[in-house]
């Protein structure tokens, strides 16, 4: 196999290292309190972006009779994910094993002490592994919550309670492992240095060692796909799972006939802005240290989002005659989705272009295309997250190009940014998109069917009419 390795971390680790002035000590990586402070902050930002952020963004769009059920489903997804994650999810995702799934060696977080260092994308720089565990937990949580948007207002809570754990186990953990698991910078750097140092005799052995280190990674990671903060793992994944759900659960009663206006765009606005707020933790936090590409991801998360919000708004203004708030905030989310995989790789101007495109494409998709096809993806999880995620995944392959202001991709085996090749990179990106669409699409379909057989997916018609809040939860949102 190649001894090149393409890495999610956009910025050359050495630059990061010098910026941060963190010496790589002989006795292993050190932990800088600035990184720990940032990563704790980033993690709680991702939590708040989901609850209440995403919950409100979704909840505001449903009718008031289903408000609580929507909020509840999102909360449940988060809480259940957090528990499953620390029990076995983290282990399945972030330990070696096969190219497709990890093992149980870290189940119950065994062996992870408060001071265990976890690798970053810079050689010699570590953060407490427990922080990385929870940072990643919030990613699994929001992904599980996102897909619910397409099946709200008609799916039974008991069905969702069962579906979430199944979906995480058979769809999310494998995909996250495929895209994000690798041996880490220190292992590869050490092996590469050893190879250099090795004399004629040791060369072969050293080469094997390096190859082993490089082989110890997920399938798509090795394929060279780059996804800084989760375009494939989070957005394409949840987006396609949502579409499949919408098709299997079926349309809401009266869909297309009755008025189903959002019950509170105020809540949707609050939710969208909290999504933006938290997304800085999501993207800039994905660099795992307060340096280098964290700053790149940070600025890109600003500009691409602003650009997409405005492009959707202006597109709507031109096409429909009025610029709507729902359009603007939908654009915000589309932009955040699209910039997610590119955030640590693209330059600011590239990110603006990406945002402008994402806003218009998703607008076109959620209006024209969706109505043409006629499925009931209640909150446009597919149109915004899957489509936006694909725009981002492919855009990343282009914008990472240093010629376009991108950071290029760092090659740890030679300790510098590797050559950019359009064809190579795009092939890898397309592979990642397709594998994710297939795995998640098929996997989700099977799981929905299983749940349907076990507890039934759909609420009774009269319950759906009266609303899920009263029937599933025995409460009303407003009195």
């Amino acid at each position, binding site marked *: 196999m190649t001894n090149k390795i393409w890495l999610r971390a956009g910025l050359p680790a050495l630059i990061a290292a010098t910026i941060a002035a963190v010496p790589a000590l002989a006795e292993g990586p050190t932990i800088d309190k600035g990184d720990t402070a940032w990563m704790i902050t980033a993690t709680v930002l991702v939590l708040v972006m989901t609850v209440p952020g995403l919950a409100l963004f979704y909840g505001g769009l449903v009718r008031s009779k289903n408000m609580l059920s929507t909020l509840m489903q999102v909360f449940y997804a988060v809480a259940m994910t957090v528990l499953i994650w620390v029990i076995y999810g983290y282990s399945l995702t972030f330990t070696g094993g096969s190219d497709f799934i990890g093992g149980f060696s870290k189940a119950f977080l065994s062996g992870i002490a408060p001071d265990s260092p976890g690798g970053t994308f810079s050689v010699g720089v570590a953060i407490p592994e427990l922080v990385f565990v929870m940072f990643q937990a919030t990613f699994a949580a929001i992904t599980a919550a996102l897909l619910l948007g397409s099946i709200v207002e008609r799916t039974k809570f008991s069905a969702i309670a069962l579906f979430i754990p199944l979906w995480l186990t058979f769809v999310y953990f494998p995909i996250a492992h495929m895209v994000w698991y690798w041996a880490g910078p220190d292992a590869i750097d050490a092996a590469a240095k050893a190879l250099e140092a090795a004399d004629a005799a040791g060369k072969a052995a050293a080469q094997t060692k390096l190859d082993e280190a490089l082989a110890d990674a997920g399938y798509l990671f090795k394929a060279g796909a780059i996804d800084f903060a989760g375009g494939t793992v989070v957005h394409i994944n949840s987006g396609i799972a949502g579409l499949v759900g919408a098709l299997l659960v079926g349309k809401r009663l*009266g869909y297309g*006939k*009755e008025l189903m206006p959002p019950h509170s765009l105020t809540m949707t606005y609050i939710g969208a802005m909290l999504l933006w707020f938290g997304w800085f933790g999501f993207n800039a936090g994905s660099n795992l240290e307060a340096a280098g590409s964290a700053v790149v991801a940070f600025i890109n998360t600003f500009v691409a989002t602003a650009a997409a919000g405005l492009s959707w708004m202006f597109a709507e203004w031109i096409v429909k005659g009025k610029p709507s708030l729902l359009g603007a905030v939908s654009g915000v989310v589309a932009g955040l989705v699209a910039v997610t995989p590119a955030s640590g790789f693209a330059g600011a101007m590239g990110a603006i272009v990406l945002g402008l495109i994402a806003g218009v494409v998703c607008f076109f998709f959620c209006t024209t295309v969706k109505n043409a096809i006629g499925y009931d993806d209640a909150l446009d999880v597919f149109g915004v997250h899957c489509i936006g995620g694909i725009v981002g995944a492919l855009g990343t392959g282009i914008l990472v190009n240093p010629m376009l202001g991108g950071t290029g991709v760092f090659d740890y085996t030679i300790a510098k940014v590797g050559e950019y090749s359009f064809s190579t990179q795009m092939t890898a990106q397309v592979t990642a998109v397709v594998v994710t669409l297939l795995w998640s699409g098929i996997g989700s379909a099977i799981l929905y069917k299983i749940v349907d057989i076990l507890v039934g997916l759909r609420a009774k018609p009269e319950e759906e*009419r009266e609303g899920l809040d*009263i029937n599933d939860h*025995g*409460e*009303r949102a407003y009195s």
Partner: protein
Amino acid sequence: MKIVMAIIKPFKLEEVRDALTGIGVHGLTVTEVKGYGRQKGHTEIYRGAEYAVNFLPKLKVEVAVPSDIVKKVIAAVTGAAKTGQIGDGKIFVYPIEHAVRIRTGETDADAL
């Protein structure tokens, strides 16, 4: 002239409106009300507190029409609002002595 006042299930409004326009009635006024009757409500639980909620959301539809078409209006509303389940609602008819269109000052039949 009469006012036909109907208490119906909320999601039936569109159908009732269509039925009325179907028979040439192009004006009506709707009010959100809460109804109490045979249809039993549901129980709500908030921590320790359990409430039996007996007032259910209904819509009151009021239509002022010439006396001669009252029967047709009743038939139209009944047809559209009926689900056959308890809680479908009631229709009440009462007489009005004058009707005025504020904009034009037209009265009675012309005002409807």
